[in-house]
């Protein structure tokens, strides 16, 4: 639920891949504003540029043109400040979870915190999040010993453990069965409602999008 103020403002985003005749324009002057505390779903058909938009908004790859403001500050194209903003403000959830297979669930979360210079959190927040996501029983397990539903919920814990301003989720239910998908979406909704966690979810599933406060549709690199 939006509670005022823009947390993310993207203007005139352009992104293309390849060169010459093979050049593909994926984002074509896209504008998007996300309000603080909002749960936004971006829907669109395959190949419309949803994932590229998420990577650009997640500061993983820079746009060819356009600007992004995060919490009122302009995002640079590259350099240490870009890394710092990504570490501080963004949490990412992927379709295929992307947990590090050699680490336990707890260690996956902890290394994510360590990358962000936060180290071990002794305040019990991580344990609380595992509890909240219903995966405290798998904290010491490696991904290979978890169900896919558990893996995705651990990935959500990892994405929010550092209190990001915005969580970007790329087809988070894409690999889950309907029961696990529903459970994950309820958890994301709960996070948004109770903790005002701003969330942008990419999906092509109308049912999943139905959990969001607002749905925007994307086609050919633009929002409709």
């Amino acid at each position, binding site marked *: 639920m939006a509670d005022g103020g823009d947390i993310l403002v993207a203007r005139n985003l352009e992104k293309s891949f390849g060169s010459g005749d093979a050049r593909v324009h994926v984002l074509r002057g896209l504008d998007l504003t996300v309000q603080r505390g909002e749960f936004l779903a971006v829907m669109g058909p395959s190949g419309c540029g949803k994932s590229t938009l998420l*990577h650009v908004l997640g500061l*993983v790859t820079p746009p060819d043109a356009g600007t992004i403001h995060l919490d009122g500050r302009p995002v640079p194209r590259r350099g240490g400040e870009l890394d710092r903003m*990504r570490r501080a403000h963004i949490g*990412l959830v*992927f379709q295929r979870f*992307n947990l*590090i297979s050699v*680490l336990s669930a707890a260690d996956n979360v902890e290394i994510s915190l360590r*990358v962000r210079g936060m180290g071990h959190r002794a305040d019990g927040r991580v344990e609380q999040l595992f509890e909240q996501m219903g995966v405290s029983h798998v904290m010491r397990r490696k991904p290979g010993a978890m169900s896919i539903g558990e893996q995705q919920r651990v990935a959500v814990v990892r994405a929010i453990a550092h209190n990001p301003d915005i969580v970007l989720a790329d087809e988070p239910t894409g690999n889950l069965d309907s029961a696990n998908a529903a459970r994950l979406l309820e958890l994301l909704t709960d996070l948004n409602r109770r903790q005002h966690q701003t969330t942008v979810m990419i999906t092509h599933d109308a049912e999943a999008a139905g959990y969001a406060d607002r749905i925007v549709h994307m086609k050919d690199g633009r929002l409709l």
Partner: protein
Amino acid sequence: MGYLPLANILHHKLRSALSALGIGIGICMLVTLSGLSRGSLSEVADRWESVDADLIVMPRGWGENASDKSGSALPDRYAAKILANHGDIVRSVVPVFTWPIKLAGQDQMAIGVDASSWGALSGGRGLAAGRLSDPDGRFAAWLTAKLLAFPADHGEILELAEADLSDPSHNGLELVIDTRLAKAGGYKLGQTVRAANHDWRIVGIVSSGVMARVFMPRRTAQFLFGNGDVTKSTLMFVKLAAGADVGPAARAIGATTGQDVVPLSRYRGMLVEKFGIMFTYVDAVNVTALIIAFLFIMVTLYTMVLQRTREIAILKSSGASDFFLLRQVLAESMLLTAAGMAVGVAMSFLAAWLIETLRPLLTVTITWYWIAVSAVVALVGAVAAALYPAWRATRVDVVEALTLE
């Protein structure tokens, strides 16, 4: 807390074990071969330095080759001449005759020494068992009498039958050996052994650490190995009087005899000079082994980076800096190297024990110096081997790695 480099090493157990083993073999070669080559030479030098003497008189020009020279070389009369001319600074002169003989399957530099000089030559050590060879000089006296009775102007050599040489009343074919040779050859006191075409009786055993592993009567050595000429020895050890300066004394005795006179302490350096090329060879082999070990690590780490592009991309998507990624790869390399070091040092001690058990006459001296050298080489190698894979890790394209899922 799960430490990612350690977790990766533990997860890929076989690959990690092989990498550590590869490094361990390189480290083991460095430590063991250095310990073997330098240890064996050092052990010989230690033994020579145990002689209670200050100077060695040797034929002019032998230089660093003195260590493997033997046979008739210096007239025995030099001993008397040195004492006569330098009685004020010289306390004793001990002539010895050296000759290689084969015992326990290996060439041993046997030392012909008079029983009266044993105290100086052994540095005051007594025998562990038995007695000295020809302890009261009966063989020397018997042989001298024989030679005096032999007309020497025919250019012929006195021929003596084995039975004459080993006659119990004046047995000249007697040996004293050290404990290591006794162990290596399984020799016992009173046993007869065949060497240099003669049967010798072992009459004494001395603790190892004395100048040589085999001693025999000097007259025997001179007669058998010096073409019957009992007037020449190989070297002479000179003990100086208390307070005499070694340098001036060496020059004075050199001037008197016309031969090379070097401090006993110089012998170690002569050995090192003589076998310097061997160290170069051994070190070259070691360096090659280490380079192969680190190429192995580099390939391992490089493969690891290629296999884990998604893991690296996940870290980068979380905001991991290049330095963070570099540190992960370096840490993994360091951990593998540390494990390899531990394996290598353990293998070195095992190899030293095996070598000394199977070949008791060899000495492997494992020193902390060479362990430290190998540690430094290993750590530098670990960093060098990790640099390229680490750089590749920082270049992983996050979008490409994550979208190719």
